[in-house]
């Protein structure tokens, strides 16, 4: 299948992978960010402890937020794949829109639809960049010599 990514698991299990990967990204990135912020905001002599405390307080929260986003996105992508029975970038874009809308649903219809538009546009950009890069790095088909004329 053109465009299929065979390094990812099939659909139910990929949700677990994506949730875990997103949590790891969020926790490590958020942890580093808050460690630096906490260390800067602490007086001399307490910097390390301040950084560790801030990282401990805020890092898992950011990891959790990322994991929520990643698992929802992956779930809806699988749902769309199952409904449409096709694998193409529209699944990702639609899933991004639904995820964005759901995560802002507590603010009412308007906030949810704005967030859904943002999610869809963001995913469209990501997918577009992905397609452009795969086209740029696509391997040329190997040049095959024409078969020798069969001797009669």
């Amino acid at each position, binding site marked *: 299948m053109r465009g299929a990514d065979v390094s990812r698991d099939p659909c139910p299990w990929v949700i677990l992978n994506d949730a875990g990967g997103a949590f790891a990204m969020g926790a490590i990135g958020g942890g580093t960010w808050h460690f630096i912020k906490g260390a800067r*905001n602490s*007086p*001399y002599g307490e910097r390390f402890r301040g950084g560790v*405390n801030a990282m401990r*307080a805020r890092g898992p*929260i950011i990891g959790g937020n990322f994991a929520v986003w990643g698992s929802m996105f992956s779930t809806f992508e699988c749902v769309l794949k199952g409904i449409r029975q096709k694998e193409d970038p529209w699944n990702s874009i639609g899933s991004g829109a639904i995820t964005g809308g759901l995560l802002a649903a507590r603010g*009412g219809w308007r906030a949810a639809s704005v967030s859904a538009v943002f999610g869809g546009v963001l995913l469209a950009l990501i997918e577009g960049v992905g397609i452009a890069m795969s086209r740029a790095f696509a391997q040329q088909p190997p040049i095959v010599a024409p078969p020798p004329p069969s001797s009669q």
Partner: protein
Amino acid sequence: MMTKALFRLRCTSALSQPIAARSAAIGGVRIASMHTSKIQLNGGHISPLKAFADSVRRQVKENQELQSNMKLLEDHGSKISDSAAMKKTREAASASSEAIRKTAQAVGGVVGDGFKAVAENPVTKATGEAVKTTAKAVGTAASAATAPIRNTEAYKSVEKNVKSYVDEASLQYGGYRDKATRMQSRVMSRKVNARTFAEYQRTRAIKADENAGEGVVLHKDAKWKESWDNFKANNSVMQGIFQARKSYQESENPVIEATRAVTDKVRGVFGFFFSETESAAALRQIRDTIDPGFSLDMFVRECREFIIPEILDAYLHSDAETLKVWCSEASYNVLTAIFTAQTQQGVMSDCKILDMRHVDFHSARVLENDVPVIVVTFQTQENNVFRNKKTGEIVQGSEDVIEACHYVAIFTKVPENADDPVTNGWKMIDLAKQSSRTTW
């Protein structure tokens, strides 16, 4: 033939777990593998449900083995009871149970009936029952003897506090408790927090001792510091280094100025990580001048668990006394002005805080009058309803509307109030609602 023999060897190894030997036919070659290496199958995919089911099956099997082993042990146990050693133990046990009963009566407790039956029973038969009933008697004696203590108020309140303290860990990400639970939990946690004497020494408030006398004792490191300062001031090499540094900073040579621009830029980049921000300076001032045992982590935790819920409760329920304890003059006047106006119009506030979360340290700064303050932000979900005091009908707001509000609170520590058991010296000098939006 060889492979078959090896296969059989692996199957009959001495492991207690059954080896589920699986073989996969890949391209006609049979590969035998142990169940722990399921990873080899299915091209790298372990079905999580299958792994879980296999694990459960294995544990049930192990449990059955455990049960049969236990049964064997009990059968052996009944044979032990007939020996002479067992008879001696039985006598000793009945003697000690007599002693326990006397103690229980001395404590003023009620002795359970089951205990009496065993203690005054004539020699029990030499069966496995002897050990079991004695053990049961001691058990009931203990619980019967302590029953009066367990029923007193002090123990009950301590028990409740321990439970609620244990629940505190779950509060870290949000939550709101009512006033009574908060107070109990605070008292309990204060006792539990000072776990070691060292920690107690660090956290107690230190006051000046008037009888201490006027003599000054030199700090033990002062000699080294003094000698190092002397060295820096008198040694020619160190002076030469300082001189060179000074001339580098103040030189007007264009080449040196260009170099200086580069080094200053580099120092700026590193300084981002290593310089002290305004918050750090303010926190250091609090730690040095007001409270040596100050820890930002503990302060934010106190805010989250006790201080902010107290103040919010007082503000929303028009509780002026609590506000007076916690607020400074100016903020007290501002906050009470709002609800005294309401009470004058005969309006009673029926606001409820549904949730409070994300209590964060925002920054710390030093105000103009050299007072260090800490800025804390938090979010709540409230239901703002105002009722007519006499009729109880809703004057403003609605019971169905939930608002998500962002607040800012500014705290400082007043050293004179450091003894206050409720506030520990912390005072709120400002509380402001930044934004409010309806949510569901």
